[in-house]
């Protein structure tokens, strides 16, 4: 640089040197002081992160310390019991949750994938109704869970679906609750597939559907599945909407999906926590621990899935 610089007229060289000095003065002195505040800033940020991590650990610790005396197999295989408190468990609630989840998965996979595919691949984005659908989904993702409970009570338990206070109603309610996030996650997964894949397929004579079904969808499946798994994890922990659609019941026998009362793990935990007897309080903490372990397994699976199948195109 110095060669070409030195060839410039003196006026320009002075001007450049002056400008350089000004800039240096503006920034350099400030940032020499900045070293200390830089370190301070870094520690403040790390502190912020640590607080969040400590919170997670504290919650786990609470569940473990309070519930450890009931970490036995009875927890999983025994049902709720008012009579035999020391050996009461969550078996019925676990089955209820499993049934609810099975229903949720059956609903969100076709509806979520279908809606995402439509919006990404087949919708004409300039048409107002497609924009309305998109906006709708984004809004639904933020509606409070208890409002979905009201929806479930009004539409699934009563007319027009008239299912009654059964597991199917709970399942449908939760499915609608997590559906928007599944659609959003699936859309991201589909968007991540480069259009060259689609276009190559089209160029070779495929119809649009063939191209999507045979090329784009398989490539997007890992991402979509991750979205579904995370939605399932969320569905397992939701209690508020289920309170309104009949899960607040004492059931001692395994639920039938379409008939009769049911319970769910987070709801039963909430119920146990509200009882006076100490055995139930311990049971509630043990139930929380059980739920956290299950969720940890599911989330780890989703993370592994995401990492394993993440592709850079």
């Amino acid at each position: 640089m110095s060669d070409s610089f030195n060839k410039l007229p003196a006026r320009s060289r002075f001007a450049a040197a002056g400008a350089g000095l000004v800039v240096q003065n503006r920034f350099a002195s400030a940032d020499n002081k900045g070293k200390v505040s830089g370190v301070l800033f870094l520690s403040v940020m790390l502190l912020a992160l640590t607080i969040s991590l400590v919170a997670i650990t504290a919650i786990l610790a609470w569940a473990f310390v309070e519930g450890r005396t009931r970490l036995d197999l009875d927890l999983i295989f025994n049902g709720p019991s008012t009579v035999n408190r020391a050996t009461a468990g969550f078996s019925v609630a676990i089955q209820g949750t499993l049934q609810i989840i099975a229903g949720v998965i059956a609903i969100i996979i076709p509806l979520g994938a279908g809606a995402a595919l439509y919006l990404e691949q087949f919708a004409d984005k300039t048409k107002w109704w497609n924009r309305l659908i998109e906006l709708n989904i984004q809004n639904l993702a933020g509606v409070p869970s208890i409002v979905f409970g009201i929806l479930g009570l009004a539409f699934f338990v009563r007319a027009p679906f008239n299912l009654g206070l059964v597991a199917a109603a709970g399942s449908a309610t939760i499915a609608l609750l997590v559906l928007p996030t599944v659609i959003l996650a699936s859309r991201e997964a589909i968007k991540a597939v480069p259009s060259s894949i689609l276009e190559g397929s089209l160029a070779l004579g495929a119809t649009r559907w063939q191209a999507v079904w045979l090329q784009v969808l398989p490539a997007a499946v890992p991402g979509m599945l991750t979205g579904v798994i995370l939605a399932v994890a969320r569905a397992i922990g939701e209690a508020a909407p289920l309170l309104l659609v009949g899960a607040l019941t004492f059931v001692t026998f395994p639920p039938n999906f379409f008939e009769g009362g049911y319970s769910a793990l987070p709801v039963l935990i909430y119920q146990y926590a509200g009882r006076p007897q100490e055995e139930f309080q311990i049971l509630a903490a043990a139930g929380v621990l059980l739920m956290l372990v299950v969720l940890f397994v599911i989330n780890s699976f989703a993370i592994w899935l995401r990492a394993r199948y993440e592709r850079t195109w």
Partner: protein
Amino acid sequence: MSSSVVSARSGARRVSLRAEHPHYGEKVIIAFLFIAAVISVAVTTAIVLALLQPLPRFFSEISIVEFFTATEWSPGFARPQYGVIPIVVGTLMVVVTALSVAIPLGLLSAIYLSEYAPEGVRKTIKPILEVLEGIPTVAVGLFAFFWLRPFIEYLTPWLPWGGLFSTGVAGIAVGLIIVPLISSVADDAMRSVPRALREGAYALGAGKMRVALRVVVPAAFSGIIAAFVLGASRAVGETMVVLLVAGAGSPQLNFNPFEGIQTMTAYIASRATGEIAVGSIVYDTIFAVGALLFTITLAMNMLAIRFVNRFREVYD
């Protein structure tokens, strides 16, 4: 569409690339896909219908003016008043406390993750933060009631802790839940800021902190605001934590964070699982409050979406 016509100047035959036979089955499939997408609209319509249907009956007995302006919420008492302000204030107190915890923690974490953290650290910490978001809220509520509140009380014995419930602690617990949300949206926003802006600042001699705070954050501002609004919206809708930690509060206006309070969500949950006969005016308050809640979160979400679109536009 897969139809196009190739015409070659050399005079080759025109070949139509349209499919040899019309694939009607595919049209049906695409129709199904459209229906799947339309279901979301159906859901919103259903929610609106469910919430609005009892309202004419409710507002024929309770004046709308009273609903929005009276300052006592005591349905079910002998001289009931139906002023919704106390429970709205309850929700607001929880949200404000939650944001005052989550905004610093979330934003600082986001700045660290997007500007400072090496890739490996980032890849480990992001999923761990998501764990905090994924913990069932009933667990967080129980934890806050049994451990967090006594712990905070132990640290601050000079504060006027009374009773068992505390709006303040409920707010802190909700704040912890929304930290990952704020962090990840803000992080996304900051990562969308083009490298050129950062590198320009570095070239001018700025240090990392200055670049982060004076260049990246202002550039990602609308995305960061979107993060805050989304976090607030989530806090507004939280039910289990406030049920367990803030209890039910008094029917009168109460701004004391050391006492319990009832939020809109907690009210709906208790009323719907409670003893009042269905179909009565008191029961209908569920739908009135539910409609109010839905409108508030809808407005917040639309606001957030506006901000997100703004930051996407500027840099895409």
